[in-house]
């Protein structure tokens, strides 16, 4: 990452307070290195992660968005992640129809014990987004104001 000419994507991660945030925390305390391209935004639950937040991230110049929370069955609020999962299934179809790049919207379940998985997911997303390049299509929409 010493090469300054390499594209540094901006990745927004909406994570749940109880699992993925702690997973990321664990990655930190375990000194697991992962790309610094991710900006973590902590929310109470994946059930709280409004699709508008995903849109907002792209509006503000994100190149990729990750939404992550507790594994099914592990939700702190019992069922928040089940509700979220159902909404994402529908939301992905809407993105598709609008021609918004679905390859830039990622979903994952990462528990508080999965610091290693957090490292892997972030590394993969960063590499993939770097391949895709900056998300200029949505940025253009927002610039024409």
């Amino acid at each position, binding site marked *: 990452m010493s090469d300054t000419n390499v594209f540094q994507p901006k990745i927004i991660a909406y994570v749940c307070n109880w699992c993925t945030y702690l997973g990321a925390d664990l990655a930190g305390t375990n000194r697991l290195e992962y790309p610094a391209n991710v900006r973590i935004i902590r929310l109470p639950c994946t059930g709280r992660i409004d699709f508008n937040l995903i849109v907002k991230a792209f509006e503000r110049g994100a190149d990729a968005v990750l939404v992550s929370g507790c594994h099914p069955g592990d939700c702190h609020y019992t069922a928040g992640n089940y509700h979220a999962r*159902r909404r994402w299934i*529908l939301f992905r179809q809407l993105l598709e129809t609008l021609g918004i790049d679905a390859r830039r919207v990622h979903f994952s379940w990462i528990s508080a014990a999965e610091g290693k998985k957090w490292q892997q997911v972030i590394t993969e997303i960063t590499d993939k987004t770097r391949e895709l390049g900056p998300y200029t299509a949505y940025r253009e929409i927002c610039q024409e104001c």
Partner: protein
Amino acid sequence: MLDELRQTCRRLLQDGTVQAVIGYGRPSPEDPVVPVFITKPEDVDQLAWDDQCFANLVKYLLRKEVLSLGKLAVCVKGCDQRALLVLEKESQIDRSQIVVIGLACDGVGKPRLAKCASCDVHTPRQSDFVIGKANTPDAAATVAERYAELDAFLAKPPEERMAYWKKELSRCVKCYACRQVCPMCYCRQCIVDKNRPVSISTSATLKGNFAWHITRAFHLAGRCVGCDECTRACPAGIDLRLLNLSLAKAAEENFDYRSGMDPEKEPIIGAYSQQDHEEFIR
């Protein structure tokens, strides 16, 4: 058929079953059809019925000033009736307090609206009265046929789809007619009207228009009944039908659910199943 409709309404008003009938009317022969609110039996001759009766009158059942008229009868086409069923499921109306007059319909508009081609509810269901008889057989459309229009659009590359929406949505003036006319948009305060904090840009620019139309479409996910009133009301002629269809398709493919069709099925949003698929989640 019109006589039968007028007679039914006259009887309902005369014997006091209802205090008002919401129907279609034509103030004079050359005028367009407008919604009419009949409160006196002698006024039932104002009622009209032909292929220009577009409006989904179910929307009025949610308005305070209309509800204050007393017990209501409402005229519905098959597609409008689906909206009635969803509103009942979502506890927005008390079905026992409404008399539903179903109007058998062979399609509206000249030429026929897009929604009429795959219509499989020519005769309204769960109505207290069904007036007339539909001559067009219900389309036995498969999933592929029902969403053929959308699939043709989805066959284009993503850049082209994005370009299409950029072109279309650039015309949006944020009049919110699509919201006002929608029977499913009944929030007391719409999210775009909340300004602390502003979550959706209120400007009528591409940025704000994308945010609004994503929001509008997604808030109707698994709820939109495809009455296409939003498309009809749009002064800019934006084909919102495509967005609604895409979510209807997702609901049907993934959850075997068509909103407003089966009274036995519960709405998919607000519920979940442990079996929902998640191959897209890492």
